[in-house]
């Protein structure tokens, strides 16, 4: 089900979003809406608080062994640092993209051969899953803020999708914006990456002809073109 993000009643999705009751596509579109709607952000925060209170009535003590396993596991894992806002150089940024993409192209072939995590991948044929399961699907993985980002592309479907895991929040008031680079070298807005344990978003734009995908930190609401160097970048192998 597709939503026009400009429609007034998109606000009505706040409740379903707060309790994770949107499908992948709706979630991606509502998150796009959220980046520019402080009213909805506040409402979602409130309704999540409310939903969490429902868990009061469902408490069940977990087995003690779970605690032991968890506490043993965290000893081997380093907590992520706080987000420190990167210095942005808007004027130089665009020119540097080209060099960065060229550099990324070198590792692209390795990225294709590398198998990402064996996650419980969605069996529902969402837009994201359609790209992932396309016979000609390619995937390219890179790292971002302690997590991983994998861009999937299907040339035959002319669609791309992005799946991220364990990406920390963007700096306050900022968002992670995703771009596809067209053959002319221009960066075209393709969507937003949602931080968190796992997130997926279907990217908009012409994926088949795109030469690369990048992620930049942009002001809330996003930018028409990148205003800073990419924090993650993958070049598509043709």
């Amino acid at each position, binding site marked *: 089900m597709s939503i026009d993000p400009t429609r007034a009643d998109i606000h*009505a999705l706040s*409740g379903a979003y707060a309790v994770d009751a949107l499908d992948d596509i709706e979630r991606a579109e509502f998150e796009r809406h959220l980046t520019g709607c402080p009213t909805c952000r506040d409402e979602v925060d409130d309704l999540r*608080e409310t939903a*969490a*209170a429902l868990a009061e009535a469902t408490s*069940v003590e*977990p087995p003690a062994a779970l605690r032991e396993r968890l506490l043993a596991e965290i000893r081997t*894992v380093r907590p*992520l640092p706080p987000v420190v806002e990167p210095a942005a150089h808007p004027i130089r940024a665009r020119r540097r993209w080209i060099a960065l993409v060229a550099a990324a192209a070198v590792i692209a072939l390795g990225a294709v051969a590398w198998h990402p995590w064996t996650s419980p991948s969605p069996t529902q044929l969402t837009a994201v899953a359609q790209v992932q399961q396309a016979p000609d699907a390619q995937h390219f993985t890179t790292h971002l803020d*302690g997590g991983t980002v994998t861009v999937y592309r299907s040339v035959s479907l002319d669609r791309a999708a992005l799946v991220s895991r364990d990406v920390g929040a963007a700096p306050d008031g900022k968002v992670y914006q995703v771009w596809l680079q067209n053959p002319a070298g221009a960066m075209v807005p393709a969507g937003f990456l949602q931080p968190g344990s796992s997130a997926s978003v279907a990217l908009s734009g012409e994926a088949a002809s795109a030469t690369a995908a990048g992620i930049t930190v942009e002001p809330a609401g996003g930018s028409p073109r990148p205003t800073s160097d990419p924090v993650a970048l993958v070049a598509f192998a043709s």
Partner: protein
Amino acid sequence: MNDLRPVPGGAPEEGAPPGADLAALLQRSARGDEQAFAAVYDALSAKAYGLALRVVRDPAQAEEVVQESFLEVWRMASRYEADRGSAAAWILTIVHRRAVDRVRSAESATRRDAAYHDRNQPVSHDETAEAATASLEAHRVRSALATLTPVQREAVELAYLRGYTHSEVARMLDLPVGTAKTRIRDGLIRLRDTMGVGSLR
């Protein structure tokens, strides 16, 4: 140095509200304090496990969801923003999302079968008896749920406690397409207002 205590200990600001304690413990966790993290776990593990169990139903999978979620809490503790909500809500949101991701990807037959006879049961039955310490809070939740219309209550429960999408909820409750999301939102807003949640900010 790793002698972890089973109950929250050494929390700063004796007598501060539990929410403030949790936020402070989370902050210490972000600095690598394993004792503080253990205290966070002890404070929320029953709610987290109970919630995961409701959604995924299988105890082994619920344990995995809780373990993955709290590992994420440990890693991401520095990203918690106190001005956006309580530490408990932040953590339970992570747990819920992971539980829902799991059932959506697996579409467990067990859960689907069990959902049929669960449909019309109220949210709070015998399981709550295991959480004696939470009984006051649980009573407050039950009272608040009782103020909802039957459709609102079922929509909220199917979405939050069973992990169904609003479109699935609409089908299950024979609602016109697109109206379940409104019932979910209306129900949550009424719960929020009844329980006074969110006025803390």
